[in-house]
């Protein structure tokens, strides 16, 4: 095993590694022992606390599945609404006209610098004050509004980065054969950019799924975390078991999404048909704030 940090190891380094491994194993075992001891002390590992998840379907059909359904509903709605909005904002930020570019930039930077929870609380009050949405539906509306406002601006940055990631020759060739700006964007840049940014969009989905839990904790939206809370109360303050199951579901769901995004990215990088421009999974974090208020790149478009 060799990397930029260390070379292939000799006998002394190997011996030292074994010592490290043993010490770390002991520390890990001690920590695990402490956790298990604490859980046993509070009777949290008894079968009675866990059996409802393994025998019978009540816990799943009454609490977990409906909760997961709401989580997915909010996430999917948010993506479907945020994508076109984000595309419009992203393209507007690349406009040649200052009066289009600057307002779009202000909107994007504004909503990116405000926490989603604040946007959700705002949405909830907005719907109860100015609309006739029934109070049962309001939490869903508020959660989706918050997610859309925030993620549209993040997706706008992804779209912008996706278009900028294309080689300059693409737009130069398009202009050389006499395409107008509109045709250049519609026929040449966007179709390629959409493919290039697919992995980034999928990994943004993970963020959206995680943020729906905020709606459950603060806005009484009946998503997975909120129903875990109700479930825990129903089974007699069964917090540890309920939260463990819910955390495992979130991990499985998001891990699947992340893996899918990485697979897409690898596939796109290999593909010979594209220009090879890919906006990877890791790149999303970098755009998230790398250019907050930074210089607006407008060359090429």
């Amino acid at each position: 095993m060799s990397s930029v940090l260390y070379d292939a190891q000799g006998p002394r380094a190997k011996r030292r590694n074994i010592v490290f491994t043993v010490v770390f194993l002991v520390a890990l075992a001690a920590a695990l022992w402490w956790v298990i001891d604490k859980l046993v002390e509070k009777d949290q590992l008894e079968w009675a606390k866990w059996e409802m998840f393994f025998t019978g379907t009540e816990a799943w059909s009454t609490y977990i599945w409906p909760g997961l359904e709401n989580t997915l509903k909010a996430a999917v709605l948010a993506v479907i609404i945020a994508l076109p909005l984000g595309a419009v904002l992203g393209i507007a930020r690349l406009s040649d006209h200052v009066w289009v570019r600057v307002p779009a930039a202000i909107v994007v930077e504004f909503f990116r610098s405000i926490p989603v929870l604040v946007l959700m609380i705002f949405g909830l009050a907005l719907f109860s004050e100015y609309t006739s949405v029934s109070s049962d539906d309001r939490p869903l509306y508020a959660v989706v509004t918050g997610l859309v406002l925030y993620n549209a601006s993040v997706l706008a940055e992804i779209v912008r980065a996706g278009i900028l990631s294309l080689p300059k020759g693409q737009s130069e060739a398009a202009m050389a054969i006499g395409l107008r700006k509109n045709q250049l964007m519609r026929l040449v840049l966007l179709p390629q950019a959409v493919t290039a940014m697919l992995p980034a969009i999928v990994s943004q989905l993970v963020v959206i799924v995680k943020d729906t839990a905020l709606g459950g904790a603060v806005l009484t939206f009946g998503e997975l975390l909120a129903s875990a809370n109700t479930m825990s109360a129903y089974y007699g303050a069964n917090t540890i078991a309920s939260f463990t199951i819910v955390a495992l579901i979130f991990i499985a769901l998001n891990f699947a999404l992340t893996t899918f995004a990485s697979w897409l990215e690898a596939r796109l990088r290999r593909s010979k048909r594209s220009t090879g421009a890919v906006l990877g999974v890791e790149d999303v974090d970098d755009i998230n704030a790398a250019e907050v208020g930074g210089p607006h790149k407008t060359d090429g478009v």
Partner: protein
Amino acid sequence: MFDFLQDYDLAGAVWTTVQLAVLSAVGSLIWGTVLAAMRVGPVPLMRGFGTAYVNIVRNIPLTVIILFASLGLNQTLGITLGGGGDFETINFRLAVLGLTLYTSAFVCEALRSGINTVPVGQAEAARAIGLSFGQVLANIVLPQAFRSSVVPLANVLIALIKNTTVAAAIGVAETALVMKEMIENEAQLLLISAIIALVFVVLTLPTGLFLGWVGKKVAVKR
């Protein structure tokens, strides 16, 4: 028009937000650096632990972690983190713990991405001219890695500042919770929202601008 503000401790709430952010930032920088060291180190078991930690923690919503800290750790297992019987102190500390555990996974990834930007040739060249392991690390690899970690770390910090609002879920009196109270009691929705939005823009935008500038200034040109 601004009279109602006197009934609420908005300044105190913003101060709580800042405290949450600073304490968690320091905590997650330390724990994240340890995790990053494990993930890039030569010991397979530690590498496995670092990878597992990052992949598990990154995929759990922060809300679940913080709510679990309050309902699970505190109310079920009776962990108070030395807060005695004071409900507010305990929840504040639990929020810092949750934010730290969550954010350190991202700090670890930011540092690791910094190390990954250093071309292998740099270390190979350093070894070829006879530098020892310690010299390679201290003089060649880490200085370059830290420089390219500035921008990713800045992103993590900005996300952290925004994530402190999640502490509202366990009743820590920070900005989002006070906003919720104000909106419920006053008929000033747009004004209140504008004030709160301004608070966060002021907290995050200069941080991003400054660290982005630093990141560009120290970046290694390749």
